[in-house]
């Protein structure tokens, strides 16, 4: 066991997997000599050289396009999108292409690739360096969407992703990169895709979250715990497809649910979670399903007061919990 930050866990996993599997290559902007703007690829260029650590031109469409072409020809590319906000030029290549290659060729071709994208706000990034993009992709059959919140899961999930024969969008909350540290086993282990994690057991209500918000939720659970409210907390980890079983089992136990995410409310992940519960866990419910999320505005603003207003945090989540518990 070693204590690592999330960015260290990601860096080390890429390094180890590239050593293990010569078909893994990585491409993206500034990932070579610069080692990535978040240093996720530091030192890799020196070890693997420019044929496996490829500084791409400034063009996201073709970072993914090239990755698809490589996957077709036997490689397992990691495509880094410098900020998730810049993934949209590649939307067509991801949604119309990567996610459909297996299906449209009736299984003759596959598209194993991992798209890494730092996402999320709270870091003074304004409208275009703060976005949560998960909901757009959690609607795409054929694509996995992962969003770890701990170094342990970051490593275990990234490793699984790199052994999965289909495209995976791997979302890394950039505020957690250095903020969140935790124990990471030195030996090889996998965290399964499609399995949520009950990170805190409780009886009164369930809060479902992921990424940075998972940590704010845990703090909130701690706060209200002292007031006598027992909160169960689920870390989704895989955002697509969702782990219905874990969600529904928790609802069966607590009968009340709150979803928390940073992405704007309308059409966010909370919607799908609510819909699943309202359909398949309805009889277990004792209260309305509450969603707490970023407001429906076109991005996280830069100015500190507005950014703070946008971002959910422990205190605000605690209020939501109190409110729901009192229902």
């Amino acid at each position, binding site marked *: 066991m070693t204590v690592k930050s999330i960015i260290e866990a990601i860096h080390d996993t890429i390094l180890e997997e590239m050593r293990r599997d010569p078909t893994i290559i990585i491409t993206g902007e500034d990932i070579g000599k610069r080692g990535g703007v978040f240093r996720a690829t530091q030192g890799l260029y020196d070890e693997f050289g420019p044929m496996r650590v490829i500084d791409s031109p400034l063009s996201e469409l073709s970072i*993914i396009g090239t990755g*698809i*072409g490589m996957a*077709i*020809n036997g490689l397992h590319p990691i495509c880094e999108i410098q900020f998730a906000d810049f993934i949209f030029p590649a939307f067509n290549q991801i949604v119309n292409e990567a996610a459909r290659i*297996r299906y*449209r*060729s009736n299984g003759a071709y596959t598209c194993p690739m991992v798209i890494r994208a730092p996402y999320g706000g709270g870091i003074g990034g304004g409208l275009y360096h703060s976005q949560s993009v998960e909901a757009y992709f959690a609607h795409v059959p054929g694509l996995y969407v992962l969003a770890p919140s701990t170094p342990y899961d970051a490593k275990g999930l990234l490793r699984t992703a790199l052994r999965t024969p*289909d495209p995976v969008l791997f979302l890394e909350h950039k505020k957690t990169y250095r903020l969140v540290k935790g124990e990471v086993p030195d030996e090889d282990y996998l965290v399964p895709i499609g399995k949520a994690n009950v990170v805190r057991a409780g009886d009164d209500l369930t809060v479902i979250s992921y990424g940075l918000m998972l940590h704010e939720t845990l703090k909130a659970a701690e706060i209200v715990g002292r007031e006598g409210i027992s909160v169960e907390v689920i870390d989704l980890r895989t955002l697509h497809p969702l782990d219905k079983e874990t969600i529904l089992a928790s609802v069966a136990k607590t009968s009340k649910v709150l979803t928390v995410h940073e992405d704007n409310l309308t059409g966010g992940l909370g919607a799908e979670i609510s819909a699943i519960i309202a359909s398949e866990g309805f009889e277990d419910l004792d209260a309305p399903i509450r969603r707490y999320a970023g407001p429906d505005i076109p991005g996280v603003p830069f100015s500190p007061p507005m950014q703070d207003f946008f971002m959910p945090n422990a205190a605000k989540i605690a209020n939501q919990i109190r409110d729901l518990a009192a229902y």
Partner: protein
Amino acid sequence: MTAYQQPLPPAAELEDSVLLQMYYQMLRARRLDERMWVLHRQGKVAFHISGIGQEGTQIGAAFALRKGYDWVYPYYRDISLVLTLGMTPRMLMLGLFGKKEAVSSGGRQMPEHFSYRPSKLVTISSPVGTQIAQAPGTAFASKIKGSDEVTVVCFGEGTTSQGDFHEGLNWASIHKLPVIFLCQNNQYAISEPMSVEMAVKSVADRAKGYNMVGVKVDGNDVLAVYDVMREAVARARKGEGPTLVEGFTYRPVPHSSDDDDRTYRSREEVESWKKKDPILRFEKLLYERKLLDDAKKTEIEAGIMDEVNDATDYAMRAPYPAAEECLYPVYGPLP
């Protein structure tokens, strides 16, 4: 027809048997394509998009490749290309009808969305141009693996307006990748003539923005295309980088079975181009060289019609996929 071995010599040195194979491939694709139009007109199939008129470019390109060794991203008009590289008339007919046995997609995709792994024909989609950004990746992988495979990617001239075109050529030229961008310039993107698609007179001019070799060739002259492609392939195989090849040709039929081309071009224009048909032209050459005469031609036609009839009958009788098959395959096994 007997198989030939790559690499083949320049057009001027090609053996008679190879020239006859080229002719056969062109004619077979044409007859199959014509039958598909007939089936559409008879209401037996819902849709067809045709390669008629572009056989010169496609066959010229196909004969410059190592079949089953080089990678090809075809586009929807590449009927003669994919037939030459290993797909069969049955496969294409099964696709036209959306039958279960259709190799390209088992009926999931529309007709002419080719895919055939044994021939390294890569699965394509309908949004035009996406393959142009992918092909350099396939070529890059060949380079990484140390293989001298070449990748060819096909598209129309209208498609060169897409960002994917720019980004694909940029990648390929930066890394000197073994990829050939084969533009089949049939002068129209559905109804739009070249003048509203681009300001250059020739698609090959676009290569200049990438410091790439760009060659325009008469796409209705199968041997000219063959020579140009042959050189481009040789260069790519030697690691000397990509080429943009423009086969200048014409589409004498409507864009697809849904189109009415009388709304945007004159019948005179169409008729004048029909006279430049690549098959007629090549046939003339073969007659001149005494490789072909009426008897021989009748024999070839008969053989082809047998194939076309067989494919049609086979595909019509073949079963549809079961409805529930549509649910798979979305994902492979997790680790």
